[in-house]
């Protein structure tokens, strides 16, 4: 029986700092990737706030996990999708702190999600 490796989708729906969800979701992604699990990241709803450039966690003495987004490439996490509709609703420019992020509409996000075996939301 061949053990097929499961692919993981991590969906971020929370903003950067007030809840620890953003940091926890990034930790989960990096841990899974370090075990060679295929991981794709999704940012929808208030999750898109995490992708804004020039956030400064130290201003409010929060853990600067945003800087750790740079490690995603090193862990081979390159399938990163940011929801365009959520960005527009929040009046955010699409310049992103994520190097490999693709801004796309929710239909593409839905189709990408269908290919993932396990979906975790944060």
């Amino acid at each position, binding site marked *: 029986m061949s053990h097929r490796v499961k692919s993981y989708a991590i969906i971020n729906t*929370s*903003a*950067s*700092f*007030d809840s620890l969800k953003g940091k926890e979701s990034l930790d989960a992604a990096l841990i899974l990737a370090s075990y060679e699990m295929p991981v794709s990241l999704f940012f929808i*709803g*208030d999750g898109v*706030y995490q992708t*804004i*450039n*020039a*956030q*400064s*966690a130290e*201003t*409010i003495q*929060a853990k600067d996990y945003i800087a750790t987004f740079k490690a995603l490439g090193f862990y081979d996490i390159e399938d990163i999708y940011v929801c365009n509709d*959520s960005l527009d*609703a*929040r*009046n*955010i420019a699409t310049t992103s702190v994520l190097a490999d992020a693709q801004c796309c509409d929710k239909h593409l996000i839905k189709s990408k999600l269908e290919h993932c075996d396990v979906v975790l939301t944060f």
Partner: protein
Amino acid sequence: MKPLPPTIHLIRTSAFADNKLQLCIDTLGVNDELFLLDDGTYNVNHALLTNLSNPVYVLDEHLTSRAVSAAEFEVINYVDLVQATVKAGKVITWQ
């Protein structure tokens, strides 16, 4: 009779994520004031505040840490916030 000191509302969450700001606006008095703190600073881009007659203030540190621009709302610091809570009649926190 001395005019009543204003009631101030502290908004701490994003109206894109929950209905707290809507609930606050539903109970807003004529000269009540709104203060946007923490994730509430994201509300500067929300339609609920665009044609609101009440004064709206935003805390500077919480705004800059989230790289959000204040749009037309007045930016204040912690000292202003504390003074406002001291002279306010009532302080209501929506979280």
